[in-house]
């Protein structure tokens, strides 16, 4: 069994732990101060790259075999990817916190080379499998958008150094974030959900047409967003990208209900149940935010709304989905590694012996509730609510990730 998914997943869990330790130390003041400050950049990049992307890489190395039913093109390139990405990320974070431009340029480039190595390896893996379906399309386009996000990040760095102009920086900044969040995370999570949820609900014979509609709308929304940031830069073009994305989110949730309707297993586990709740919560809150913006003709990119949307998308959806799926991915990895060759023997543990369902359920419930309170704090612009609820949120996250890490002792 490959150790590559382990490397990324364990590193991602450490990144998640570190993010929350730093967040507690700074009492979430970086949210109140604004995200476009060096401490804000540090926290955001630690969260997005050190946690979300790191764990997503591990999940891809584990699940690509399942989706494509073939092995990764070159596993050795996976280790090169890990080394470059991890070293680059450490240096990049140091660059952000210290304001060292040279470190940002050097290690940012190393991180991007790591992502390009990953993109190259995955492109060969996917092309070699000669298969094509909605799930493979989602995975492929998410990786393409990640590579493009990395390239726009590099271009932003070059723009800083050579100074083409402030307007180009704003365009690249928006494109970089849009590609990384909506493109990379969005399509990866939706695509993997189409595989994970039927597997754990044991759902069969469910209709799949909505998977296609969701994926088309999601991809179109990414493209409209990029065109908006790079060329149009009009309020209507941004709203068009957002409304298209919202439509994709709604259809995606309808499809998840279809999958659940055709289930043959009553209890898919607490992680899967909470990902369903997390998806619905995200859809409802996204509808409320966008409707409010449309009715009051507000600017989605103003200070409070931008923080609100960032929290809703990255914390309450992307991270929450990863946490939910980690409750399945980590026990699966560990069980296969430790007990995979003991199938058929007496007293071989089963998957439910790896993780306490009760504690996992409570942990995810606490994370959901506390993250909702932080969102309220952001909505009413209250630094004290953000600080206290943020503290509670971080403590719940540390407790939950420790529970997941405890699997490795089983």
């Amino acid at each position, binding site marked *: *069994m490959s150790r590559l998914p382990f490397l990324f997943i364990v590193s991602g869990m450490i990144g998640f732990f570190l993010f929350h330790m730093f967040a507690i130390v700074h009492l979430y003041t970086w949210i109140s101060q604004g995200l476009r400050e060096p401490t804000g950049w540090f926290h955001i990049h630690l969260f997005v790259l050190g946690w979300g992307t790191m764990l997503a890489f591990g999940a891809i190395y*584990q*699940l690509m*075999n*399942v*989706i*494509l*039913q073939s092995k990764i093109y070159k596993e050795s390139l996976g280790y090169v990817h890990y080394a470059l990405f991890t070293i680059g990320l450490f240096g990049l974070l140091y660059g952000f916190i210290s304001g060292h431009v040279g470190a940002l340029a050097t290690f940012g480039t190393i991180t991007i080379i790591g992502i390009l190595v990953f993109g190259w390896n995955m492109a060969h893996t996917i092309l070699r499998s000669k298969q094509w379906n909605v799930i493979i399309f989602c995975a492929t386009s998410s990786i393409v958008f990640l590579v493009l996000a990395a390239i726009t990040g590099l271009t932003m760095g070059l723009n800083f150094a050579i100074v083409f102009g402030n307007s180009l920086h704003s365009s690249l900044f928006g494109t970089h974030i849009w590609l990384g969040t909506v493109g990379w995370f969005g399509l990866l999570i939706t695509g993997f959900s189409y595989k994970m949820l*039927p*597997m*754990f609900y*044991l759902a*069969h*014979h469910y209709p799949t047409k909505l998977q296609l509609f969701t994926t088309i709308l999601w991809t179109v929304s990414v493209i409209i967003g990029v065109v908006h940031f790079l060329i149009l830069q009009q309020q209507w073009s941004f709203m068009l990208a957002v409304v298209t994305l919202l439509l994709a989110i709604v259809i995606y949730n309808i499809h998840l209900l279809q999958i659940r309707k055709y289930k*043959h*297993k*009553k*209890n898919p586990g607490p992680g899967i149940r909470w990902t369903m709740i997390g998806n619905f919560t995200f859809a409802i809150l996204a509808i409320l935010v966008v409707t409010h913006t449309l009715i009051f003709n507000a600017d989605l990119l103003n200070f409070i709304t931008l923080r609100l949307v960032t929290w809703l998308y990255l914390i309450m959806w992307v991270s929450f989905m990863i946490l939910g799926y980690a409750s399945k991915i980590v026990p*699966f990895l560990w*069980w*296969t590694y430790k*007990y*995979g*060759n003991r*199938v*058929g023997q*007496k007293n*071989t*543990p*089963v*998957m*439910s012996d790896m993780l306490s369902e009760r504690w996992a359920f409570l942990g995810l419930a606490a994370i959901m509730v506390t993250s909702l309170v932080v969102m309220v704090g952001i909505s009413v612009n209250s630094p004290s609510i953000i600080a206290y609820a943020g503290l509670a949120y971080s403590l719940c996250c540390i407790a939950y990730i420790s529970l997941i890490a405890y699997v490795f002792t089983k």
Partner: protein
Amino acid sequence: MYSPRIEDALRHVYDPELEVNIVDLGLIYDIEEDEHNIHIRMTLTTPGCPLHDSIIGGVYRILQKEFPDKEINVDLVWEPRWTPERMSDEAKERLGFF
């Protein structure tokens, strides 16, 4: 015709996620036995199941242990696709299907 001991042995191979043995899950499509060989044609609940190697390895090991003088062949197929209707009533009850 095959020895009922084969099916009994296969009942010790569990899907660790579903916690149901592979016979009750309806994963075994066909069993053939002759003087020197045992041939199993089976599937998994989902194509590319991540437990593929563990379950197939478990089938090999348990049959080799029970029938050390015979050659064991396991043929994993995806057609016809497994459907939940293939599960025994015990398996359906275990999964809360009813």
